């Protein structure tokens, strides 16, 4: 799957050699960018390789190989941002982009000289002996074929298996007027398995997957790919016999791991710096105030090795970190990029992220999760006489201004008399961000992070993220199903 001349262990050298640039030229370009009355400027070089394989009907029939490259030039003056990008990386295109982006700062001044020095990223969270993008194509084909066989062998009601493997490598170089020149090589692996089950005229699907900033072998270790496959099969079969979701307000227990998407929607987005600087978040001006039950401590952590949401440096060159958002129920922090941190007079948190060189950085989450509590998960389920247990979700969405969020359960059960009884389909949960964590009455000992498939959308930009949660009990959440009363 490789078409590299050399493994880019040194991102700076990679870009300078590939495009015939020099460190002096980069420093001069950043200097020219802040020449007018600008506060900050940066260059973001990107070279991204993606390999994809797809299976259906028992055969690997699709393959893709994609290369994207380019540079984005940003100039920030006050709260104004000028941005220009080009997929041609030449001295001329850099000069043109710099002039275009710089137009935002409208008063001319002396040409600034940025003293730029090369730095190494603060962490080394995904060093791999073999970059996954160099995995032989035949290995991926073999993996997907084994998934198909395993799924069909597990149950004859499985009528189709759709599986996809995506492997990415993004090499970036960030040069900014704060004097940073830093590069990173970011691997990303993702495997998805969807199974279609049919029985007596009924049809259902189950989907599961995982990955991260890992070596390809991660999928094989502990037979992970087989676990993903089994889980997708079980979900499809369970859904065949699931009952319609109840409708109304009830006690909801969220299982550990991926249901942490609740935190991402209900809390995380509302704590991003841009929304709070503009005072358009339901959490604006709640810093230092209680927003959750004292059982809840929520963090955003971009420094966990090999996680999908982790980064050595964010997309502005700031080292990622661990930010406490909520500490024992009290709102403690926001997630910041450079623009919003400067305007709000707050510290950088390493959350300036962008989808690609074609996008302006925004404050975004990395891996967002709640710390473990003290109640054994079995006791949490046992404490509920009648309610809903949600084990896995499709996706979620939030309106950060009103604070209302929604997420959809793809695996859920009725809780009756402290026990999980019937599987339920089509349950959507809706709540109010600033209110929902105050309703958490029990937090489990079993914190788990998700399997590594999360993608977050904001302002038309998608970035990989992670979530996590221990088992929690929420008293009184609205469940939207079809079975009223």
């Amino acid at each position, binding site marked *: 799957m490789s078409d590299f001349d050399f493994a880019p262990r040194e991102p700076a050298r990679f870009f300078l050699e590939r495009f015939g640039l020099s460190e002096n030229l980069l420093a001069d370009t950043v200097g020219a960018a802040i020449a007018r009355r600008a506060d900050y400027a940066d260059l973001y070089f990107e070279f991204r390789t993606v390999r994809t394989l797809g299976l259906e009907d028992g055969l690997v*029939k699709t*393959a*893709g190989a994609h290369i994207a490259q380019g540079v984005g030039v940003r100039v920030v003056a006050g709260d104004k941002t000028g941005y220009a990008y080009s997929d041609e990386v030449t001295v001329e295109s850099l000069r043109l982009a710099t002039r275009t982006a710089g137009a935002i700062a409208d008063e001319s001044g002396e040409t600034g000289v940025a003293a730029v020095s090369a730095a190494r990223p603060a962490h080394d969270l995904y060093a791999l002996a073999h970059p996954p993008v160099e995995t032989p194509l035949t290995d991926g084909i073999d993996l997907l074929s084994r998934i198909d066989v395993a799924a069909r062998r597990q149950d004859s009601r499985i009528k189709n298996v759709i599986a996809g493997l995506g492997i990415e490598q993004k090499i970036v170089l960030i040069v900014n007027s704060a004097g940073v020149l830093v590069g990173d090589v970011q691997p990303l692996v993702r495997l998805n398995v969807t199974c279609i089950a049919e029985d007596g005229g009924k049809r259902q699907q189950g989907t599961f997957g995982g990955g991260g900033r890992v070596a390809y072998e991660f999928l094989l270790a502990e037979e992970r790919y087989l676990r993903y496959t089994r889980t997708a099969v079980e979900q499809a079969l369970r859904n065949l016999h699931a009952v319609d979701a109840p409708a109304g307000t009830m006690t909801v227990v969220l299982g550990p791991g991926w249901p942490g998407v609740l935190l991402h929607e209900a809390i995380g987005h509302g704590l991003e710096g841009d929304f709070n600087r503009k005072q358009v978040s339901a959490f604006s001006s709640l810093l230092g105030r209680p927003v959750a039950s004292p059982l809840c401590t929520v963090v955003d952590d971009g420094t966990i090795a090999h996680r999908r949401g982790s980064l050595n440096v964010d997309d502005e060159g700031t080292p990622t970190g661990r930010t406490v958002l909520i500490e024992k129920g009290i709102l403690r922090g926001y997630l910041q990029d450079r623009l919003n941190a400067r305007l709000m007079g707050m510290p950088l948190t390493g959350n300036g992220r962008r989808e690609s060189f074609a996008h302006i950085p925004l404050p975004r989450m990395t891996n967002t999760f709640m710390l473990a509590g003290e109640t054994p998960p079995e006791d949490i389920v046992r404490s509920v006489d009648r309610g809903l247990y949600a084990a896995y979700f499709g996706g979620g969405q939030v309106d950060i201004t009103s604070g209302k969020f929604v997420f959809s359960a793809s695996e859920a059960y009725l809780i009756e008399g402290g026990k999980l009884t019937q599987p339920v389909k*089509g349950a*959507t949960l809706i709540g109010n961000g600033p209110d929902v964590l105050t309703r958490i009455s029990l937090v489990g000992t079993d914190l788990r992070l998700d399997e590594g498939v999360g993608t977050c959308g904001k302002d038309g930009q998608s970035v990989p993220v992670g979530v996590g949660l221990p088992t929690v009990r929420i008293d009184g959440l609205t469940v*939207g199903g079809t079975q009223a009363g």
Partner: protein
Amino acid sequence: MAEQPLSDIAELLLAEAERAGATAADVVVAEAESLSVGVRLGSIEKLKQARQKHLGLRAFVGERSAVTSSADFSRDALLRLAADTVALARVIAADPCAGLPAPAELATTIPDLDLYDPAVGRLTPEQGVAMATEAERAAMAADARIANSEGAEFGASTSRVVYGSSPGFRGEYRDSGVSLSVVPVASENGSMQRDYWYSSQRRVDRLETPEHIGRTAAARALRRLNARKVETCEVPVVFDPEMAGGLLRQLAAAVSGYALYKGTSFLIDKLGTRIAPEHVTVVDDGTVAGGLGSKPFDGEGLPTRRTTVVDRGILASYLFDTYSARRLGARSTGNAARSVGEAPRVAPTNLFLVAGTHTPEAIVASVERGLYVTELIGFGVNPVTGDYSRGAVGLWIEGGALAYPVEEITIAGNLLDMFANIDAVGTDLEMRHAVSAPTIRIARMTVAGG
């Protein structure tokens, strides 16, 4: 570097793919220029300008194929891309349905569908700033309760697309797009609500005025203030045109040839059967002049056309590209959509629900007690079964009139039942998107609240 015509690049890639052993190939080359400006609270917030180009190659070795893409247009890179694509195709499994369309199916003329307005490319950042500023000003001037804004955004882009394939098709067209949107924030009694309005067109002179966009956005944000929750119940639900368009997008996904053969559509085996009442007709038409979904030819060089998807309630046609049609023993409907770096997939062109006979006011007046939906959030739609459950925002209807705003509720049903229970279709169809619908009423859905 000297500019090389996009068509020369396409020719070179096709020839090189054949030289490397491809039995057939096709190429998409796209180039775009774009400008966007954002204004917030009366001053410029961002200015973004770009020029981008990208190409995609699909190569077949008999019944095997692979797709690649690159932004590097250097000759060396193109030669390597051709060789790599063929090499990739060779190791993939053979698929007897794979292949390009038969030459007889290819478009022979390339109609001018009024997709390109040269005035869009001449718009300056200053003009964009002026329009965005005016839209935001109009929104904020509408009411004292609108004291904040997420800003207004203006966007303009022009692009050129070249498509060529080894059976001999060569096509090229330009298009343009211009848009203006504003997101005001209304506050009252310590709670905040935002809403938006926008206009999107291929020609500058068809854009709604900044004044109108601003005032509409303000009215939408204001009517959400002081929202309540409602008790769980079963009631008629009226979808405003924007939300009704969302239901059509679910229909479009379910009539795609790919969803059908993969088993991921709730409309499998429903062709020729009644799925909705007599007054429901849905048409896909890629030839609408100036249409946001119009194209002179599809992603495989077939002519676009008008296809009646639902004919007076009967599911009359699925939508296909060449591959999915072959899989299901049908013929392509000219609905191949092609992103530069992807194999074709099926997408509607301009899909619309034909206007009915009830005014939107009459539809609301016909509801004794129910919900008028203005926004839906979340992803609670199961394409396999049609099960539908989403977060909703809107206005409660009492005695045939809009009474008060509601939020933090969900609406749930099943798309098959929902289409079957469309009991009124509005007169207010406007082609604001590639997928558009008028106001519709669904006889009964579960609303979950308190």
